[in-house]
């Protein structure tokens, strides 16, 4: 089975809240002292792909769209023994919405070849839009199953386990398809062996510019315009604390109930 895993590099979502700042003019988060890490759901996707390969052979390709630094995410995938890696390098620091990302990934995938399963994380830890998987499937003309946390090869297709609000759904699908991967204790990302980390530094990573996959800035502008971030800010958290006054406990309770009723009514 040939699997392709899309990896997104993001600002470390685990930085202390006080260190997180945004630039309101460019409407983007500021890197500051934060490191760049691979989005956790993308890592779950890679882990799912590795497990699938262990169970039923095949190859794994890793693909990323992002700045040159995103190569680190791909190297880590190589250290975990992905078979090949490809970076579509983005020279611009502009915000890329899910539609743009899907457009670029789809073009790259077409050039990379045929794949049975294309895996993406269910959402990214920066913007959390959760759109890329669906839009990518649309562009590739493939079915898409979301929130998958387990994949099993069966016959000429796969059996997927998908998380729903009430539990799990079991889905049988024919290949090829796109899945978005959610986290589960089964796909906690493994860590690479040290020797593999060292070897991964010597493995090749295909580096494409947008022109290599026949895309122009114009194409990206079209999808980019589909969604505009108008404003970006860190919501101010405010907590007010008021002690209800009253002569007796009963008075206080009455007053408290009245206030509560007021809040419920106004809501």
């Amino acid at each position, binding site marked *: 089975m040939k699997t392709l895993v899309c990896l997104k590099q993001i600002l*470390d979502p685990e930085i202390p809240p006080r260190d997180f700042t945004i630039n309101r003019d460019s409407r983007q988060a500021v890197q500051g002292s934060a490191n760049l890490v691979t989005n956790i759901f993308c890592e779950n996707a890679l882990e799912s792909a590795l497990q699938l390969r262990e169970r039923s052979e095949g190859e794994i390709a890793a693909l990323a769209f992002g700045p040159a630094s995103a190569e680190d995410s791909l190297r880590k995938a190589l250290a975990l023994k992905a078979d090949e890696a490809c970076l579509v390098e983005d020279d611009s620091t502009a915000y890329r919405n899910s539609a743009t990302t899907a457009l670029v990934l789809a073009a790259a995938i077409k050039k990379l070849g045929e794949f049975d399963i294309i895996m993406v994380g269910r959402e990214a830890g920066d913007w959390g839009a959760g759109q890329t998987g669906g839009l990518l499937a649309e562009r590739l003309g493939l079915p898409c199953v979301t929130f998958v946390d387990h994949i099993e090869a069966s016959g000429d297709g796969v059996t997927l386990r998908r998380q729903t609000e009430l539990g799990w759904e079991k889905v049988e699908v024919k290949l090829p398809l796109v899945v978005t991967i959610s986290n589960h204790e089964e796909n906690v990302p493994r860590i690479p062996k040290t*020797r593999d980390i060292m070897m991964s530094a010597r493995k090749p990573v295909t580096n494409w510019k947008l022109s290599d996959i026949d895309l122009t800035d114009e194409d990206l502008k079209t999808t980019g315009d589909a969604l505009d971030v108008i404003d970006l800010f860190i919501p101010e958290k405010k907590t007010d604390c008021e002690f209800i006054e009253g002569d007796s406990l009963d008075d206080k309770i009455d007053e408290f109930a009245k206030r509560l009723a007021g809040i419920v009514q106004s809501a």
Partner: protein
Amino acid sequence: MTLLAALNAADATREVMWNISHSWVMYVLLVPTMLIAGYGVYKQVQKWRSGQPAARFDRPAERIMRVINHVLLQQATLRDRFAGVFHFMLFWGMITLTIATTVVLIQHDFGIEIMKGRFYLYFQSLFVDVLGVLAMLGVAVLAVRRWVLRPKKLVYTDESTWLLVLLFVIMGTGYLLEGWRIAVTNDPWGIWSPAGIIVSKASLAVAGVGTLKTLHLFTWWFHLVIVFGLIAWAPYTKLLHVLTAPLNIYTADLDHGGGTLKQIDFESAQSFGINSLEQFTWKDLLDLDACTECGRCTSVCPANTVGKQLSPRDIILDMQGLLDRSDLASLTGKADGQQPDEYDPAFPIIGATDNLSSDALFECTTCAACVEICPVSIEQLPKIVDMRRFQVMEQAEFPQQMQDAISSLEERGHPFKGTQLSRVDWAAGMDVPLIEDVEAPEVLLWVGCGGALVDRNQKSTRALANLLKKANVNFAILGREETCTGDPARRIGNEFLFETLATQNIETLKTHNIKNVLTSCPHCFNTFRNEYPKLGGNFEVMHHTTYLARLIGEGHLKLDAQATEKIAFHDPCYLGRHNGITDAPRKLLKEVSQQPLVEMEKHGRQSFCCGGGGGMSFVDEPADQRVNQERAKQALATDADTVAVGCPFCTTMMEDGINAVKGDREMAVKDVAEVMWEALEGK
């Protein structure tokens, strides 16, 4: 006595082999005895020699001193009072008896007449007789200990039983022979052999001279056969320690309390970490054969104490068993030809037995209590880390929470995944100078991840910074430029990550031209002091307790005794045991407190781990097997109001432990700096 007075002491002697004919049979028997024993020793020596190189013959003067202290004076052995004293008696008794036998040999076989006169009376008769009795007493008491008292730490094997029996029989028959000789020859000097004369008198009371002479003859041969048998068998038993222990003590790791970890050459190493006997150094293999099975290491191991699988004694003994069964010498050639990425250990050891299971290896807190207590200088801890390395770097299979710490170290330069704090939050509103704002700071305050990124420790770090300011110390911090020293990565077993972090830190410090480093974390302290120099980072590093003691000594800080609480000090393993610093914190506490310092039963170099070293502070231990709660109980057994600590990891481990088990009792946990600052502030 009248008879004695009539004799001239200068003529005193006895005839050797007075009752023995065909003594050539003895020499004939000696040949196979020596061949069997010699082969046993040779075989083991070959196995040790197949190990990797290790430089353990430098600094001979220090090594000789070590042998004097730990072999001749039995210092380490005597730490276990009971067994130590009787082993001491056995040890010196056996040495004396061996010398006495050598004297006989010189006299009889080389024809040099030395067994005469005062030397014969005082040494060869009286002294040897008394020491022999002590040795016999030693064997008897050790036998009672083994069969009646049955301490848990011993290993109960038939071999041990037989060895004790044989030693006792050899010495017992020795005294019978002596007594009967005195009786039959009517030895005028017999009184100089007190035990001999008693046997002689007692025997004469029940048997005639003729009978005793015959008995003597048979017993003599019996004694000889048993002695030769034991000599031949010894190298195949734990008695081999008679040879290996002194050798092992001589070649001990002289630094860092025996806890020195090896460096790895990542370019050429066949395997990162060890999973095969032949990858250990010859010293590691010698260690295995030096074990006396005394069990002290396991009895002081914190993980074992709380009921975990980890047992340093059994790790050593199980590997010794594997070494016995392996044919190492012939295998070393094979491993060389293999490609690194398909390295396949010749004798896999991890998982070979329960004691060598990966789970057990990752229970170790790297406290080094085992290394410290071992009477024969065995280095259990470095071997445990060697094997962890294999699990971490070659297999990537180790406890999930340790993996999280490692990933966090890789991605964020600190092991505290999910911390809400940044490196400088503790200094908010305090005006602590950053390195870029200070011209040439006297010292760099290395805060450490534990001191900066854990809520509880912010208070301790602030206290220390306040004390420094109060003393007008020109200091600075690195702030966000600081990353983990690499200690947790190294102890968990990721040497590669350790080197990466270490090299980066050394670079940073060199860029800022730092010479002096001050830290409140013993783990950082240990890394700076013992490990960075090997990577080219030579800094003068001080633990805050030493530094504060110095500030007081030089009059920069004035402390009137103001703390009224009763304080006990918990020695952090990486301060006390690993680095021998136990006085400075006590000096400070005595200075600051009106009350006398309280000591826990286990303190100083024999302190008991808080449970947080070796990456264990990131792991949730099973609820009924928590090392910190065990240590908390030990603290609560004193009448102290406060446990003072000198380590951010100890602070949180001890506080959690005490809160979990204290019941109605109140007991605070404070860093030494906090105790001092509170006293100064009059709280």
